[in-house]
């Protein structure tokens, strides 16, 4: 009896999470188009729904209808699997995101470690897409992506470790609760960690100024050059879910998660997350792109040393 209830409960949670992911990704796509349009002194989508809110729905419907072209020379299995592998890790990351005091799918006691592990998986999807397409642009895109994500993994993980050290736990809820008095961002060493985190996370999800894997002006569309229809849409959904995930993690680790006065926790959590998403969008529509060697140099010569230094500093501050 209990086990049936558990399964039903798990299903309900799963559907809610998946629904949230779809809604969030569509909202973010629409929002990005609106934000970019207003930055560029345009309006953006206006015709479908109020100020074009249904634009992403229309796009999704259209992409569903599109023919699914499989290149003749493609490595079929790899080509087929790639979008799924790209979209699954961000979905899995929702397991440990604390939306509210009790609003968490499962508060794993190794939550942060789990997130670190997941962030390395999506690169496999991108690389598979680049390889499987049998297209030179895709291949370059995939290679760039692999190199980039592996380089930025290190500062990303180091900056997350600093938070775990401060909180004394790897559990996401405990980290949130540890920030009850003072958000992490107000500690100088953690503020540095936040900037390192945000920079490397931007690189992890291939956004400007680190969007070299899909660099439109160089590689046409990078690793997803050959993808059409729903498969392309899956990369898109994965990308925007990732965008939400890294913002949500930032909100949790550095901005006190769901904590805040008056409003319920989930609202605070969403406000903080979408606030960081907005900053990332702002950056995207302002900056040019770095070159591949500069990008790697930045990771290894700037971010990684800073992170190590920061790690030592935090350790010293904690045992002082």
């Amino acid at each position, binding site marked *: 009896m209990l086990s049936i209830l558990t399964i039903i409960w798990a299903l309900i949670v799963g559907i809610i999470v998946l629904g949230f992911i779809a809604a969030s990704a569509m909202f973010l796509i629409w929002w990005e*188009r609106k934000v970019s*349009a207003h930055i*560029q*002194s*345009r*309006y*953006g*989508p*206006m*015709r*479908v729904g109020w100020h*074009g809110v*249904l*634009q992403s*729905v*229309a*796009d*999704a*419907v*259209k992409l*569903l*209808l*599109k*023919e*699914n*072209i499989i290149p003749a020379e493609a490595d079929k299995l790899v080509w087929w699997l790639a979008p799924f592998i790209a979209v699954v890790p961000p979905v899995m990351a929702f397991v440990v995101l604390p939306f509210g005091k009790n609003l968490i799918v499962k508060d794993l006691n190794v939550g942060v470690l789990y997130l670190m592990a997941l962030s390395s998986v999506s690169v496999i999807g991108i690389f598979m897409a680049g390889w499987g397409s049998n297209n030179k642009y895709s291949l370059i895109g995939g290679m760039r992506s692999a190199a980039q994500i592996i380089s930025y993994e290190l500062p990303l993980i180091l900056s997350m470790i600093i938070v775990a050290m401060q909180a004394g736990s790897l559990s996401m809820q405990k980290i949130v609760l540890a920030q009850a008095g003072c958000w992490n961002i107000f500690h100088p060493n953690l503020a540095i960690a936040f900037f390192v985190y945000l920079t490397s996370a931007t690189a992890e999800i291939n956004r400007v100024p680190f969007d070299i894997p899909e660099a*439109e002006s160089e590689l*046409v*569309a990078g690793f*997803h*050059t*050959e*993808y*059409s*229809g729903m498969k*392309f849409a899956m990369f898109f959904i994965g990308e925007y879910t990732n965008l939400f995930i890294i913002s949500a993690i930032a909100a949790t680790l550095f901005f006190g998660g769901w904590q805040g006065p008056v409003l319920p926790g989930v609202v605070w959590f969403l406000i903080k997350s979408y606030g960081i998403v907005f900053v990332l969008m702002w950056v995207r529509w302002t900056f040019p792109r770095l070159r591949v060697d500069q990008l790697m140099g930045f990771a290894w010569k700037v971010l990684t040393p800073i992170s190590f230094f920061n790690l030592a500093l935090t350790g010293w501050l904690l045992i002082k």
Partner: protein
Amino acid sequence: MAVIEKIPCAKIIEKVPGGGFFLTTSESILKWGKESSLWPMTFGLACCAIEMIATGAPRFDIDRFGAGVFRASPRQCDVMVVAGTICVKMNDCIRRLYAQMPEPKYVIAMGNCAISGGIFYYDTYSVTKGTESLGINVDVFIPGCPPRPENLLFGLMKLQEKIRNEKNAAR
């Protein structure tokens, strides 16, 4: 490709009471999606390309109609705007780009050159006389040399109208 074919088990649903209504509703939703999200290809041939960019730029803003996502890869486009003079050397390239686009796909011939060769019709040895002479069916012709951005927007709306009125067998 008919929109209705995309709905699974259409034949069975039609027989169920109320199924016909369901089918028409879902068909109109699918058509709505198709017409409100026409992504053009980043593909400028000549002068008209500048006007095409100007249509995407702040004053005219083609993105209002959901058609502002200029994709560089033909795999992700819905509409090919042939913007400019087609030259003999470019023929094969245009045919290939058209073939690379996934169905359902549409073509807008923007400007006189893309319609018939326009100003370059006479006395030239290297200009193809229009998009149709390449064997590509054009959905909307927009005359002008170059057409003003308003014309391109009007052409886009005409294309949307065409999609709306599409009979099932048409495409």
